């Protein structure tokens, strides 16, 4: 299959729940082999989009295809190409980890023997050997998520859908999930994930669509997106709040705009370039301004949203979608 071929293509996808347009005309084009992030706040339509692409929901309007197969008229073919790791853990909590993997192996056509071997191999690679015989409802969030992803790769899939793969995980588990996604990508599996964290999209994706109120409002590589919104900021905290005025002047000359934080000892300045940030901190130090701490932050999702939409990335969950999500 050509690397330039489109793995996922969507045009004008629309889905309403009880009068609320959860997805309001989404267009996507994901290249085969790409890792693609759909970024947006709660309720922006990310989950609904993934549910349509993975054939669980029928779009009200628009169309989409996976490797050229229509998600509605050729749903069965599409199901043969994809795997879904849903937002709620898509594993059976009342079975053990091993049983979950054997169950899927059997359903996907492995022999009893092969399904057992495959389950053992996956449990080992995902660090779940000790928990293999325990019921999944007793798993930690990170273990559950790892099992969930293992369940998605019991047999070879062309496209993986991951719905908020690291929401609610501790940093260590989050890194493990990222490692898995990177490994899959390296093998050439097309991956589409959605996330609320710019950080996550930045770490994993080679293409990002920013989605707001059911529409794609920006699209590009992580660096394109960050460049388009003016990127991050240098955050400085001083030991002595009385030196803030002096620090403000110095930073203003080094980095232009300076913002005074509510904390009387803190200030920040927009800055994309780590080298210039370091120079600015050094200038403070040379002038005798004592710095307690400093950091160069990426723009937060809030800043991205503010820049792209002019409104903050507030939770956009509408009542209709809450009901929908509770029901499913």
């Amino acid at each position, binding site marked *: 299959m050509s690397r330039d071929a489109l793995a996922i293509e969507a045009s004008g996808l629309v889905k309403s*729940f009880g009068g609320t347009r959860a997805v309001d005309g989404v267009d996507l084009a994901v290249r085969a082999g790409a890792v693609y992030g759909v970024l947006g706040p709660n309720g922006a339509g990310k989950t609904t989009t993934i*549910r349509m692409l*993975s*054939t*669980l*929901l*029928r779009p009200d309007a628009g169309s989409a295809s996976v490797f050229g197969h229509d998600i509605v008229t050729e749903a*069965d*073919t599409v*199901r*043969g190409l*994809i*795997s*879904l790791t*849903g*937002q*709620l*853990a*898509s*594993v*059976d*909590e*009342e*079975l*053990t980890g091993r*049983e979950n993997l054997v*169950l*899927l192996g*059997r*359903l*996907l*056509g*492995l022999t009893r023997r092969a399904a057992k071997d*495959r389950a053992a*191999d*996956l449990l*080992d*690679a*995902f*660090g779940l050997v000790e928990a293999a015989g325990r*019921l999944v409802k007793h798993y930690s969030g990170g273990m559950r998520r*790892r099992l969930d992803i293992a*369940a998605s*790769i*019991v*047999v*070879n*899939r062309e496209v993986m859908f991951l719905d908020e793969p690291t929401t609610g995980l501790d940093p260590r588990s989050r890194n*493990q999930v990222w*490692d*898995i996604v990177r*490994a*899959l990508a*390296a*093998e050439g*599996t097309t991956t589409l994930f959605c996330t609320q964290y710019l950080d996550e999209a930045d770490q994993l994706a080679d293409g990002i669509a920013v989605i707001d109120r059911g529409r794609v409002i920006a699209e590009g590589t992580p660096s394109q997106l960050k460049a388009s919104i003016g990127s991050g900021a240098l955050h400085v905290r001083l030991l002595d709040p009385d030196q803030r005025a002096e620090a403000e002047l110095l930073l203003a000359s080094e980095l232009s705009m300076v913002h005074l934080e509510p904390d009387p000892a803190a200030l920040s300045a927009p800055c994309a370039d780590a080298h210039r940030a370091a120079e600015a901190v050094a200038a403070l130090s040379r002038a005798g301004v004592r710095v307690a701490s400093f950091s160069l932050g990426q723009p937060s999702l809030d800043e991205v949203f503010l820049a792209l939409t002019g409104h903050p990335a507030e939770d956009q969950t509408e009542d209709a979608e809450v009901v*929908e999500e509770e*029901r*499913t």
Partner: protein
Amino acid sequence: MTEARLHSVLATGPRPRPASAASAALTFGWRGMLKIKHVPEQLMDVTLTPVLFVLMFTYLFGGAISGSTAEYLDYILPGILVMSVLFTTVYSGVSLNTDLTKGVVDRFRSLPIWRPAPLVGALLGDSLRYLLAGTVIVVLGVVLGYRPGAGLTGVVLALALVIVFAFALSWVFTTLGLLLRSPNAVMNAGFTAIFPLTFLSNVFVAPETLPGPLKAFVDVNPISILASASRGLMEGNVASTDILVVLGTAVLLTAVFAPLTTYLYRTRG
């Protein structure tokens, strides 16, 4: 979890052909059995409740209705078999409804398998529960002095007929399970329907003493006919029309409610 190990485990090569319809359904039946294995307490309702029913009805009403508990046992045992198994069918709808609140259903629905496989498989697993409930009742009956005229063969045939009918009736409750919003609502609606239908049948009393309109209803109630057929099979004097009516009703229920359940399962959000 090392990177090299991760790469080594990623599936490559051709995908196997997904499980056939029958194999997928059986695999889901296996899932049902695993759940029983992990939580055997859930078998209480199919073992203890029937025991209570048999003891209560036999010793409470036996003397009053049939003159002696021994005689009433002959009449009521096949009836209680029918009642206990049919009550259990409501739980098929309840457990489907519970399942739907879990994320795993999304995975099942995104697999390239026969659409109704999870439903059929769950009902196959439930049939095992019906068999267990039925066996408990018959064994208890024999302990209490019940002697089926047609022997073991009759009992096995009666059990088989009741389970076939229960399988068909389960589809009604799985439909309810997909239409209603909570497991409790399914339970309430289910028992509101099955309770009067069972009591307004010949399960407990012969309909001869009933007032006209009620008797007319009891006579055509499929549950009466199922109870009569079970009695007949166990005694060795079954009317073949009863069996035909029971099987016909089962086919009808399945033909209407199995596709309806599957449709609702497939098209839900």
